């Protein structure tokens, strides 16, 4: 693998190492286990958890109010029926995609550098999918009837409408969540065993239970590694398929601004752009805080930044083609849609989107920018905002002026819309904090293998 790692670094600068500080395998095991077993994160962790739990309370209240009173507490109405809930859904699920891209796609491509960031990126994926799933579920209005989406033997002799993208979406997102969980856990099993063997007392029992009695036998490893590779191969097409199917929710409808063949690749690129932005948003503070600079090196940040630059171009191409084909069609409503995009009620947001997703990422042409963690951090925040805005423009910007001018109506998110959105950060934050505290945040066995093979 080492030769392949070297191939990545063809630039003239001295390559940033994948693992810094000259760590040995045993050092990695001790260091990462200690992260889990001893309280290295200190008081800041408790403060952060407190803030997250506060937001989680906001989440709980928003959900409770919604369930008690119904979706009328949201800003949606007959004209804009999708609003903030679907915007947030698309945004969160897009963020998950970078995790799968790193852990599955880059594994298949033998990109050794992925090893140190895959675990936390997978964790990010899982939690982002969980946050995303909340929205369509609650948007049903009667979420307790969600099982109507599944085929089950019912007295009505009814089956799901298989030709509807909404069913594809349900199947795609639940598959994505399940596969991500299995992939994440399979990789985690040997690491939990490593923590078990360093732990004492009750913690030892907990990790012993969680690691399923892993012994590290050559036979176990043989099955494990094969299955891990296969799961990567199965998860890789999901990176492309999930957001493609999400995009079909829109593009199957015949509305201007939605009905476009560019949507699947445009959505996938957007997903990976926002996903890598989130990876950087999380990785930069995390590596400083948890002192993971030796694992998450500048090389990781730079590679993520390069991927952001590429996907930013694809997304920009999506914008351009949408505008071009709208103009090319000459169709009245499509032309009007474009006009509204640039001069309508939501045009300021549209310019923010262009700035954040197309113009600002051009800074990534400079290596100096790509290797300054905190500059990247602020840029990634801007991209996160930009990508959220893009989804808002797609959902609301299209719906508020449909084919029936008498029905045109602006959309205003209510406090409960924002409460739920803010609340999902609490959900994400609390679970993420628990994750970095109690789960090996770097894949131990893969790091040990990487170091071993680097030496050879």
């Amino acid at each position, binding site marked *: 693998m080492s030769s392949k790692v070297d191939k990545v670094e063809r630039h003239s600068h001295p390559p940033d190492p994948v693992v810094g500080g000259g760590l040995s*395998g*045993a050092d990695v*095991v*001790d260091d990462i286990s200690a992260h889990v077993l001893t309280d290295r994160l200190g008081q800041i962790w408790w403060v952060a958890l407190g803030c997250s739990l506060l937001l989680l309370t906001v989440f709980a209240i928003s959900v409770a109010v919604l369930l008690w009173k119904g979706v009328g507490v949201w800003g949606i109405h007959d004209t804009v029926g999708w609003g903030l809930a679907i915007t947030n859904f698309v945004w969160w699920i897009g963020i998950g995609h970078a995790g799968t891209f790193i852990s599955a796609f880059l594994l298949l491509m033998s990109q050794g550098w992925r090893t140190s960031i895959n675990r936390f990126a997978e964790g990010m994926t899982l939690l982002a999918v969980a946050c995303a799933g909340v929205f369509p579920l609650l948007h049903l209005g009667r979420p307790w009837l969600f099982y109507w989406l599944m*085929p089950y033997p019912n007295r009505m*002799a*009814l*089956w*799901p*409408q*298989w*030709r509807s993208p909404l*069913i*594809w979406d349900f*199947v*795609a997102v*639940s*598959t994505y969540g*399940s*596969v991500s969980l*299995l*992939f994440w*856990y*399979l990789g985690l099993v*040997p690491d939990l*065993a*490593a923590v*078990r*063997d*360093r732990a004492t007392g009750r913690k030892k029992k907990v990790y*012993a*239970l969680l690691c*399923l*009695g*892993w*012994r*590290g*036998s*050559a*036979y*176990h*490893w*043989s*099955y*494990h590694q*094969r*299955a891990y590779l*296969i*799961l990567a191969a*199965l*998860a890789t*097409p999901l990176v492309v*398929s999930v957001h493609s*199917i999400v995009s*079909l929710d829109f593009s199957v409808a015949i509305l201007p601004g939605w009905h476009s063949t560019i949507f699947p690749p445009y959505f996938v690129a957007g997903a990976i752009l926002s996903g890598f932005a989130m990876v950087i948003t999380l990785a930069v503070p995390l590596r400083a805080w948890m002192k993971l600079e030796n694992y998450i090196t500048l090389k990781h940040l730079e590679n993520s930044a390069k991927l952001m630059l590429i996907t930013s171009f694809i997304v920009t191409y999506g914008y351009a083609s949408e505008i071009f084909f709208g103009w090319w069609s000459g169709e009245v409503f499509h032309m009007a849609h474009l006009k509204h995009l640039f001069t309508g009620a939501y045009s300021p947001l549209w310019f923010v989107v262009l700035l954040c997703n197309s113009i600002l990422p051009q800074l990534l042409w400079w290596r100096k920018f790509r290797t300054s963690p905190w500059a990247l951090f602020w840029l990634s925040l801007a991209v996160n905002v930009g990508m959220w805005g893009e989804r808002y423009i797609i959902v609301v910007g299209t719906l508020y002026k449909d084919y029936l001018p008498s029905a045109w109506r602006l959309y205003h998110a209510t406090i409960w819309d924002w409460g739920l959105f803010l609340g999902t950060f609490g959900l994400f934050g609390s679970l993420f904090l628990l994750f970095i505290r109690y789960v090996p945040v770097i894949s131990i*066995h*893969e790091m*040990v*293998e990487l170091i*071993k093979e680097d030496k050879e």
Partner: protein
Amino acid sequence: MSGTAISFAASEEMIEAVKTLRERDFNHVDVYSPYHVKKLEALLPTRPSRVSRAVFLAVALGALAAYGFMYWSAVRLYPFDVAGTPHHSWPAFLPVTFEFGVLMGSITAFFSVLFFSGLPRYHHPVFDIEGFHRVTRDRFVIVVEGVSPTALPQFEKGTIHEF
């Protein structure tokens, strides 16, 4: 289960020892290591392709079942006219077919590892070997089942435990 465990600090020494043991027809040999030692695949009768075959079967059956079920429900059980499309509008059935195949394959991949490895198993004789906890850190332990230390060839570096 009882036998002899030989513990090594370096993977190269362990691999040499495994080679020696295999040459002398010791069949019940297993190696416990902190990571996947790829060279062992050739030395021990591991069968990772069992996982591949199980997953292939699961993906094929899952996809077939999903498509068959959609056909059965949308064409036979309750044919329903949507915008004049044919009842058997197969392109629309593909996303679910694909997703369900992947889902079944992934579940099978995960559980076949457990099934073929005999996990979860929380109590195992090898855990009684002295210093076995270092297997997840920096030790490579060869276990020869049912053989006492005296019957084994001598190794330069390894530390021997009977259990």
